[in-house]
């Protein structure tokens, strides 16, 4: 495209400078639109921003809460980064989160008397298996029948919500409660909290471990190589002896297990019971986080902390200024669009050229 002596050309390679610039611009743009939204709600942007920062980073304890909030987001972000790396579009992390939470809770109901270390292991394993099973269905259908996994994972999300609503208003409902929720899990299943004065729990450490593990898997193992190969060129990977169908199922199972751990960690680490509102769309926020981190599992960690801060900051902003907390949902969508657009723009450069004569 040519405008006078300016010409827009594709770059030969996109380096880290362009990528970083795109990221910074995307976040700035999202912040600007977010401020605009606050202003249209009739609130002082400055007052809102002050409440926001106070609620996300105010002091050590508050920042601890931000890390608590980012814990499930690290899990779902890594889950989606793995799947998207193989170009397997797992939009079902939300359902897998609840499948994991359900399975973890089921373990505590099934074997309530176990000693604590065994109980904790069982809860963690249950959460991973629950999420993995829920993700395996769309994985197998994609690998075996070519069924579009965006559609099937979204459908699995809805099905999970109805399964859970059935349990929580039926056989699992806390008999002493009017709400659709289970009883508290036994003390032995509580994740230990390890930083005095904060609610930081075992789940956070586990999430960091998973991010590091996923990074290692992708960079240093054959499986990781195969996942990346399927993602960059599936037919070529097949010619090179990669079993594409198996890799698709495997990456879905891994992704589901991670999303399931998010659910188990929220139940055992934070809420100590199962309710339908223990996730405010962590599975979908994970998509934005993964893309913000450019599908790098280690990059997911700071991105997740950023969105944990967004959620907590917005809550305190609502209390202080009345701006609806739904703002977080809007900002998430805006961020995603800007990240996609600026990433694409980073592939081009503007050059001055001599006009053709």
């Amino acid at each position, binding site marked *: 495209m040519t405008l006078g002596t300016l010409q827009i050309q594709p770059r030969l390679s996109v380096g880290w400078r362009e990528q970083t610039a795109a990221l910074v611009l995307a976040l700035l743009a999202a912040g600007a639109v977010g401020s605009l*939204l606050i202003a249209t709600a009739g609130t002082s942007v400055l007052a809102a921003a002050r409440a926001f920062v106070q609620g996300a980073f105010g002091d050590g304890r508050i920042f601890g809460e931000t890390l608590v909030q980012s814990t499930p987001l690290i899990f779902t972000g890594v889950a989606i980064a793995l799947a998207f790396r193989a170009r397997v579009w797992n939009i079902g992390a939300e359902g897998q989160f609840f499948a994991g939470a359900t399975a973890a809770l089921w373990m505590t109901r099934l074997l309530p008397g176990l000693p604590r270390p065994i109980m904790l292991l069982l809860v963690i394993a249950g959460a991973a298996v629950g999420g993995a099973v829920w993700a395996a269905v769309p994985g197998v259908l994609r690998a075996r029948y070519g069924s579009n996994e*965006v*559609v099937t994972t979204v459908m699995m999300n809805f099905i999970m919500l109805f399964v859970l609503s059935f349990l929580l208003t039926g056989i699992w409902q806390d008999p002493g409660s009017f709400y659709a929720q289970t009883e508290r899990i036994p003390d032995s299943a509580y994740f230990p909290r390890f930083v005095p004065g904060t609610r930081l729990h075992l789940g956070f450490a586990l999430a960091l471990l998973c991010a590091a593990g996923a990074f290692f898997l992708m960079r240093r193992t054959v499986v990781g190589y195969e996942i990346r190969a399927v993602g960059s060129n599936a037919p070529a990977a097949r010619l090179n002896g990669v079993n594409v169908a198996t890799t698709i199922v495997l990456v879905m199972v891994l992704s589901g297990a991670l999303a399931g751990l998010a659910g188990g960690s929220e139940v055992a680490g934070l809420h100590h019971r199962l309710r339908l509102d223990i996730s405010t769309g962590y599975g979908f926020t994970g998509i934005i986080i993964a893309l913000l981190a450019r599908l790098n599992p280690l990059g997911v960690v700071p991105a997740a902390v950023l969105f944990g801060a967004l959620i907590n900051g917005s809550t305190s902003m609502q209390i202080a200024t009345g701006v609806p907390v739904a703002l977080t949902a809007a900002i998430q969508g*805006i961020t995603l669009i800007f990240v*996609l657009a600026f990433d694409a723009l980073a592939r081009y450069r503007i050059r001055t050229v001599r006009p053709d004569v």
Partner: protein
Amino acid sequence: MSELLQTGFIISLLAGMVRFATPLLLGALGELVTERAGILNLGIEGMMLTGAFTGFMTTFVTGSLWLGVLAAMLSASLLGLLMAFLSTTLRVDQVLAGLGINILASGLTFYVFRVAFRDVGTANLPNIAVFQRVRVPLLADIPFVGQIVFTQHVLTFIALALVPTIWFVLYRTRQGLELRILGERPKVLDMRGLSVAARQYAAVVFGSMMAGAGGGFLTLASAGLFLPDITQGRGFIAFALVIFGNWSAGRILLGALFFGLIESLQLHLQAVGVGVPQQLLLALPYVLTIVALVVARQTSREPQSLGVPYVRSA
């Protein structure tokens, strides 16, 4: 159980089928045109949701249902422009662009709804009077068929009429031929000096307007109120219908009627009080969408270049 066999019940069930099929049909026909032009529009869920929201808000404020329909289509077409810009101009991965549209629509509608109605709970949701059904003169007097097909919303008649219309345009007009070539071999058009981008923009905007109208139907003809994420995956079901229908308008109609019947059945069985857990009935459309994708996996008419951004030099 005797209630289930009465003619009144069956007529009501089948009329419900046609009614519930409408938003799915509108969305799926729009998606069909978009995909024929080579663009995979997964943002259809967000476009329907936006249509449902702005349609409701416009009617709530102005009191005019048809202004609501117009607003539903226009607002969704803005998202369509964004989708076309991302996928055709910037060549962003179309799956990601579509997801972005969905998350954006979900967040924005939720936020604006909360800003507009700060103190509403489930008990005092703002609502509007919905469209009345219309009897087609003479045809509505035919026994059974008249009550099922010819006593419906105007939007339903439009949706049904669009099935043969879209077939005709796609297969019997020059513009339709160009559109289909776009999804197969866009280079052919480009080499003849015809703009690929302009046609793709037009197709995506048309598809998004249809999705917006489908979403508008949900609030303006069915619910009469708005709830966050009120579309409940119907956009994705409409998307699946295009695959299920093997990219043919006639089969898409059959699919839409099937899912309309399921939704109608849910409502009627709940009213009669069959001893099935409510959640099982509610989960049925989602389970059947997965089943439909697996059972009907003919892709013989899938556009070859679907989802592949067109690059001239390639």
